[in-house]
C-alpha cells in the first residue's frame, strides 16, 4: 500500500475504490440490520456494537503485529463489515463473550492468519459462526421470539446490559425454536414435518421478519432490497445469488414433490435460516468466491445444493455457513479450471487457426 506516483498509464480512474465498495455493502445491509435491531431491542444493539468494536480492535492488533500501516487498513471498512456480518450470523441475545470471540475468530483466524485482506480462503464471518456453533452449540442456538424495542416485554437498556454481560434475568420464557430447528426435530422423530408451527403461514411471516432466528435471518424482504441495491450498483454480480437460489429451488422443489412429509417446500428452504443473507452478502464475498462469472455460477449452485444436503441429512438444522465454507475451499480449483478465452486464441489457448482466414476470403 503506497501513494507512490505511478509511472505508467492509465492516468484516470473509475470512481471505484475498496472503501467505497465496503461502504455500499454496509448501506445495503442497513435496512435488514435496523429492522433486526428493532425487533430484538437493546440486547441486540449492545451485542452488535460489541462485535464491531472487537473486530476493529483485533484488526488493529493484527495489523500492528504484521507491521502493516494501521490507519488506512482500519479505515477501509473491511473490518467493520466483517464484524457486521458476524453480528448478523449470531443469535441476537448471545452473551458478550460470544460476540468478542466471534470478532476475534473472524479477524484473526479468518483473515490475518492468511496474510490479511484479500488473502483468506474462507469467509471470515462464516469461519467465526461455524467455529462458535461447534464450540458453543447451546449459546449459538438460543433463539427467542422477537421483542421489539419499546414493547412491554422488551428489556430496557440496563436489563439488556444484564442479559449480555451477566447472563441475567430468566429469559427461558421467551425462547423459541427457529423453523428449521422445528423441522429438524420432527425429521429426527420420524414425524411429518407438516406439524412445524411456522410452516402454514411461512412465506409472509418470513418476508416480514417476525420469526425467531439470528439477526440476519429476520426480514427476508429487507435483505432482498439490500441485495437488489448491490446488484443495481454492480457491486456484486448476479451469478452467485441467482445460481444459489436456482439450485436450491430446483433440488428442494423436486425433493418436496416426492416426499412432502420429510422435505419442506421450496419457499421454506429459500426464505428460512440464513439463505438470503448468504446469497447476497456472504457467498458474494469477493475474496472467497471465484473471480470469473462462469465460476461464480458453479460456486453458487454448489452452495445451494450443499445447503440442502446439510439441512436435510445432517444433524445440523441449518447449513448455509457450512455450504459456503465448503465451496470456499473449492474456489481455487474453480478458478484454476474456469478461464476466459483469450482474444485471438482458441479455448485451449492455441492461436486461432487459419480456417478463419479462409472464411474471411469469401
Amino acid at each position, binding site marked *: *500500500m*503506497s*501513494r*507512490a*506516483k*505511478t*509511472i*505508467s*498509464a*492509465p*492516468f*484516470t*480512474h*473509475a*470512481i*471505484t*475504490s*475498496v472503501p*467505497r*465498495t465496503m461502504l455500499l455493502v454496509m448501506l445495503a445491509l442497513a435496512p435488514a440490520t435496523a429492522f433486526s435491531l428493532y425487533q430484538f431491542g437493546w440486547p441486540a444493539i449492545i451485542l452488535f456494537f460489541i462485535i464491531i468494536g472487537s473486530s476493529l480492535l483485533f484488526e488493529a492488533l493484527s495489523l500492528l503485529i504484521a507491521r502493516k500501516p494501521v490507519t*488506512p487498513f482500519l479505515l*477501509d471498512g473491511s473490518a467493520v463489515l466483517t464484524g457486521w456480518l458476524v453480528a448478523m450470523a449470531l443469535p441476537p441475545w448471545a452473551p458478550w463473550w460470544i460476540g468478542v470471540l466471534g470478532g476475534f475468530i473472524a479477524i484473526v483466524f479468518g483473515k490475518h492468519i492468511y496474510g*490479511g*485482506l*484479500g*488473502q483468506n480462503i474462507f469467509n471470515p464471518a462464516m469461519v467465526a459462526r461455524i467455529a462458535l456453533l461447534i464450540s458453543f452449540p447451546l449459546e449459538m442456538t438460543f433463539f427467542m421470539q422477537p421483542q421489539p424495542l419499546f414493547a412491554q416485554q422488551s428489556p430496557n437498556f440496563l436489563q439488556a446490559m444484564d442479559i449480555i454481560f451477566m447472563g441475567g434475568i430468566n429469559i427461558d420464557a421467551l425462547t423459541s425454536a427457529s423453523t428449521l430447528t422445528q423441522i429438524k426435530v420432527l425429521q429426527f422423530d420420524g414425524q411429518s414435518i407438516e406439524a412445524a408451527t411456522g410452516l402454514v403461514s411461512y412465506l409472509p411471516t418470513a418476508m416480514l421478519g417476525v420469526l425467531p432466528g439470528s439477526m440476519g435471518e429476520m426480514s427476508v424482504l429487507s435483505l432482498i432490497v439490500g441485495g437488489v441495491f448491490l446488484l443495481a450498483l454492480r457491486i456484486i*454480480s448476479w451469478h452467485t445469488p441467482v445460481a444459489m437460489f436456482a439450485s436450491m429451488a430446483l433440488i428442494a422443489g423436486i425433493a418436496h414433490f416426492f416426499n412432502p412429509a420429510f422435505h419442506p417446500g421450496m419457499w421454506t428452504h429459500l426464505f428460512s435460516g440464513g439463505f438470503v443473507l448468504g446469497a447476497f452478502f456472504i457467498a458474494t464475498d*469477493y*475474496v472467497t468466491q*471465484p*473471480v*470469473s*462469472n462462469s465460476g461464480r455460477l458453479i460456486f453458487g449452485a454448489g452452495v445451494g445444493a450443499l445447503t440442502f444436503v446439510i439441512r436435510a441429512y445432517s444433524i445440523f438444522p441449518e447449513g448455509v455457513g457450512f455450504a459456503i465454507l465448503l465451496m470456499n475451499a473449492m474456489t481455487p480449483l474453480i*478458478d484454476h479450471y474456469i*478461464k*476466459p*478465452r*483469450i*482474444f*485471438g*486464441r482458441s479455448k485451449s*489457448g492455441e*492461436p*486461432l*487457426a*487459419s480456417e*478463419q*482466414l479462409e*472464411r*474471411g*476470403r469469401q
Partner: protein
Amino acid sequence: MKLFEIKGGVLPKDHKELSANKAIQEVPMPLELSLPMHQHIGIAAKPMVQVGERVTKGQLIGLCATQCLEGSASNNRITAPVHAPTSGRISNIAMQRSPHPSGLPEMMVTLQPDGADRWGALPRALDPASSSASELVERIQQSGIVGMGGAMFPTAAKLEARKYSDLHSLIINGAECEPYLTADDRLMREQAQKIVDGIVILQHILNVPNVIIAIEDRRVHAVDAMRTAIGAHKGMSVVLVPTRYPMGSEKHLIKALTGQEVPSGSLPSSLGLIVNNVGTAYAIHEAVRLGQPLISRIVTVSGGAIKNPGNYHVLLGTKVSHLVETCGGFSQQPEQMMIGGPMMGLPFSDLEVPITKGTNGILALTKSEVKPGTHRPCIRCGACIPACPSGLEPQDLFVLVRNEKIEPAIDAGLADCILCGACSYVCPSHIPLVQFFNYGKGQALEMRNEVVRAARLKQLSDERSVRVEEKARQKKAKQEARKKAIAARKKAQEQERAQAGEVKA
C-alpha cells in the same frame, strides 16, 4: 453494416468537449526545434547534416541508409527518415534526454528556425493513377511517414504486406477512443477531402476492393464530413462503431467490423486486412500530391490544467513548453502531464520534450481528473476480468508478474495484453496493473534475448572447442614430428659415433 460485439472495454468520461469544437490552429514559430532521430519503430536514423549547416524546409536531415541497416537482422530492416520542419540553421547535434519516461539520452538534432519558413527543392508531385505501387510506396518511405495514431510503425514497411498477403480490405481507423483526444476528429472534420485522397492512394497501392472508414458513433460531424468527402468513390464506406474504449485498438476494431479475431501472434494481414490511421492517410496525400515529407502533425492540447485547450497544427520538434504557452499556459498546477491519452499515454514532467511523429495529444490533468488513489491489496473482486478486451485475467497475471513468474505469466497470456489500461482503470484497489505488465513484458523480452544470446554463445564456444581441438591436434602432430626428427638425429649421431669408433678402433 452489421457490427460485431467486442468483449470487455470500459467507458471512461471522454472530456472531448474541451477541444472538439476548437478548429485546428497554427502555432507561432518556435525559437528552437528538437528533432529526435528515432521517432518511429525500428532503427534510428543518423544525422545527415553538420552543426552550423543551413537547411531548407523539408530537407532530409536524418536517414538510415542501406549501409546502416547492414548490421541488423535481415527481418528487421525498418526505419524512417527525418526532415527539417522549417528552414534555419542546425545549432546542435548531440545525445539528449528523449521524450520518453525512461529519459534515456538519444540522438537529437537541434534546429534554429530563420523565420523565412522557406521550402527547399521537393520531389515532384506524383499522380497516383499513373504511378506504380512501388513508386508510391517509395515516396511514402522517403517522406518519413509512420503510423500517426501513436504506434509510429513506418507505413511503407506496413504496406509491404501487399506482397506476401492476399489483402481484400483496407480499414481506416478514425476511432479515436482515448479520452480528451480530438486531433483525428478535427482532421476529419476539416480535411476530409485530403484524407479521402490519401485513402484512394492507399487503395491504389494495396489494390484492395473494399475500404471501411471506422469512426466512433459520437463523432457525428466527422462522420458527416467523411461521408460527404467519399461521394461516389467505389467500395468505400463510413461505418459507425460504438464509442467504447479501446475501440481504436487495431485488433478490436477488426473484430467489431468483421467478427474475426486476428490470431494471437499474427498481423491483420493474416485475415487479408490492413489498418491505417486517418492522420496517416492525410500525410500520404501530402507526400504524394505535393511531395511534402512528414514535418508536422495535429496535436490536441487539453486537460483541466490547460487554460485554452485546443487542436494545433504543430511542427515536429516543437517543445511542449512552447505549445502550452500558445494555449495560454496552465490554469492550475497539473497533477499529471502525459503525451497521448490518459489511458495509454506516456507520462512526462520535463516541458522541454519535443513533439514527435506519434504525439497525438499533450494533456495536463488536474487531481480531480486523475483521481489518484491509495494502492491496496487485491480483493479478488474480478472487475478487471470483464474489463479486459483481450480475455485475460489481469488479477492472475499481476500475481504471477509480481512473483517474477514470467514464464507462467506468458502461458497465461501476458503477450496478448495490449496494455490498454482498462483493468487498472476499474481496479478498486488502484493497483497499477499496466506497470506490472510492462515490467513483465520487458522481462519476457530479456529472457527471449537471453535464449538467443545463449544459443549464440553455445555456437561460439562449440566453434572454439573445434578450433582448440584442431590446434591441439596440430600441436601434437608437430611435437611428434619433432620427436621423430630428434630421434632420427640421435640415431644418425649414434651411427656416426659408432662409425667413428670403428674408425678409431
